[in-house]
């Protein structure tokens, strides 16, 4: 693993330098080409101008005058590096610094760049041949090698650029590699710690907000979710172990007593009936726990559909109305009109019913239960407020905990999972359960997202 990372960082560094070279070559090649072309053109232009001036002398004053003019220039060294030759129609040299028409040079007019042997030395010469009236010919040339130093400087410059680029590239690459390896090392250490079982570790996120940070943030969110799920599973296992043990112990003792005492059939059957009721209680807890685990795991998000929350609440209110009337409660539901939301209608119905069920259980006869649907911009609150005993402020944070049963709930049916379920369902819907004092009584507010927030979370 480590070797792969190291080699990939090295590859990145080498790639970085190579990329620099490629860029330089791509930059220098057209530059050099343009430079050479310009110089060539300029050189030929100069030579052509010279030839034209000489041809003008010929036109005005004839061959003899041109010959003496050329000789004069050659003697005065004005020609310098220039190659001058003026021949008659038979090809005999009349003037110039060349003893004869070099054999390798064509006789037709035009401009050429050719290697020529001058004074026994091989040189590249750019030249312009001009055909003059009467068969005379004129050759004006210039040693190209004279420009060699400039070209050399170009190459030196290029080499210098390559050197600078190599050094800068290597340093840059090494820095990139070091920074990359340092951060990957950090990730590795965190992951190793997580693999050892400590899920609380998180990747370091810098303030720079670069791609690695974005990745780290995404991974951190992933880790958070995993941690939550693992804790959820651990919680459920603990709850099952703890809270199924009690009713199972009761059941066991009941059956054992039955086996030991062998009571008359009538009594035995009553005990068996009671045992079946015990088992039903265990099954009820079991089902509630399973559903909680399922909700906590976020597995049910696939069942979200567009639903009218008001309709669900109205149905629940109607469902509980006869039971409320039986206890002489006043149950009121104010219809705010349709409140569409993306939710799991089965779960939401259960949560709403649990809240009303709760109030019905705890409020003494003749109480008031008020149910409201309060639509917000991107959330909706289902409020169930009663004037019952309420939950003491100290107990409120724990009220939604699994199997928590406040003093007021002693002697009432239920297993202490109702509010946990409501809270879990609210959370699944991107919301929460808020319990407040209703002066007197309990005001339970279940807030759920209407869909926009959930779309972002999914």
């Amino acid at each position, binding site marked *: 693993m480590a070797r792969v990372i190291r080699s990939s960082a090295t590859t990145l560094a080498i790639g970085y330098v190579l990329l620099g070279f490629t860029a330089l070559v791509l930059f220098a090649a057209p530059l050099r080409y343009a430079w050479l072309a310009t110089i060539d053109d300029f050189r030929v232009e100069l030579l052509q101008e010279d030839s034209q001036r000489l041809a003008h002398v010929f036109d005005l004053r004839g061959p003899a005058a041109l010959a003496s003019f050329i000789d004069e220039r050659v003697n005065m060294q004005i020609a310098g590096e220039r190659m001058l030759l003026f021949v008659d129609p038979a090809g005999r040299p009349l003037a110039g610094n060349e003893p004869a028409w070099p054999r390798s040079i064509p006789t037709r007019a035009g401009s050429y760049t050719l290697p020529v042997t001058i004074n026994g030395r091989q040189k590249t010469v750019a030249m312009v041949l001009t055909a003059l009236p009467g068969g005379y010919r004129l050759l004006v040339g210039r040693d190209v090698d004279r420009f060699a130093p400039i070209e050399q400087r170009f190459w030196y410059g290029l080499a210098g650029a390559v050197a600078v680029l190599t050094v800068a590239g290597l340093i840059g690459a090494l820095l990139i590699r070091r920074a990359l390896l340092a951060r990957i090392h950090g990730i590795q250490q965190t992951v190793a710690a997580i693999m050892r079982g400590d899920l609380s570790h998180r990747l370091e996120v810098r303030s720079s907000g670069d791609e690695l940070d974005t990745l780290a943030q995404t991974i951190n969110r992933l880790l958070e979710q995993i941690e939550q799920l693992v804790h959820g599973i651990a919680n459920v296992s603990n709850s099952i172990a703890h809270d199924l043990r009690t009713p199972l112990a009761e059941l066991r003792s009941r059956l054992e007593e039955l086996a030991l005492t062998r009571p008359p059939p009538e009594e035995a059957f009553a005990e068996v009936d009671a045992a*079946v009721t015990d*088992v*039903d209680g265990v*099954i*009820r807890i079991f*089902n509630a726990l*399973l*559903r909680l685990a*399922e909700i906590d795991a976020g597995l*049910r998000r696939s*069942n979200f559909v567009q639903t009218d929350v008001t309709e669900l609440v109205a*149905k629940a209110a*109607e*469902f*509980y109305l*006869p*039971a409320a009337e*039986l206890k002489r409660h006043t149950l009121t539901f104010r219809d705010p009109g349709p409140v569409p939301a993306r939710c799991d209608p*089965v779960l939401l*119905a*259960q949560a709403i*019913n649990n809240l009303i*069920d709760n109030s*019905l*259980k705890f409020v003494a006869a003749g109480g008031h239960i008020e149910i409201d649907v309060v639509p917000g911009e991107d959330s909706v609150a289902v409020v169930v407020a009663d004037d019952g005993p309420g939950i003491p402020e100290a107990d409120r944070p724990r009220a939604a905990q699994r199997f928590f049963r406040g003093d007021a709930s002693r002697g009432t*049916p*239920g297993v202490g999972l*109702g509010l946990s379920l409501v809270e879990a369902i609210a959370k699944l819907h991107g919301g929460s359960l808020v319990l407040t004092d209703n002066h007197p009584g309990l005001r339970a507010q279940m807030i759920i997202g209407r869909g926009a927030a959930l779309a972002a979370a999914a």
Partner: protein
Amino acid sequence: MKILVVEDNERMARFVTKGLKEAGHTTDHAENGRDGLFLAVSERYDVIIMDRMLPGNIDGLAIIDALRKADNHTPILILSALGDVDERIKGLRAGGDDYLTKPFAFGELLARIDVLSRRRRQDATQTTLEVGDLRIDLLARKVWRGARAIQLQPREFKLLEYLVRHAGQVVTRTMLLENVWDYHFDPETNVVDVHISKLRQKIEVDTEPQLLRTVRNAGYMISAEPPSGAD
């Protein structure tokens, strides 16, 4: 009734078949999917009780699917330890007619089988239902007891309609929750009982003979005849 029980757990199978025999039904038992499918296609049954997870990793749903494709429409009750709402939907989509989660009360199973076996005889075009002197007009949504018109809330009407459609059969609280309210969970309080007693107050006034009865450990039944010992 002739009932096929496809169930691999020996104890569970014995519990179900014994209970069904006591209720006056005849039963066949298959302990794996292959035998179950064979019996289901070669014999005529009134109801099939199908476990989902069978030996050899066969899902009971595959058998149901095979039966339905073979144009066999025997009512099937799926009996499964998979109790999730999603699983339930999956089971009903596969062609099951009802879904009961293990563990279950035997009364619940019996009531559901009873309802399933008679479902086929239901006439969908019926516009009135009658039990004794109770008459329901499904189109006008009106109810009479003899000459007395009874005013019912929409949900009460639905509750009564469900009970009368299954007149003479035991209907459990869970069945009422599922079919009248479409609730797939058990409320912790006795809300259904309260609805029933409220309905009873409306349909049984003064000296009118009792129609709606509570069946101990099972549920409710609407019937014109006084309860007999068996059935």
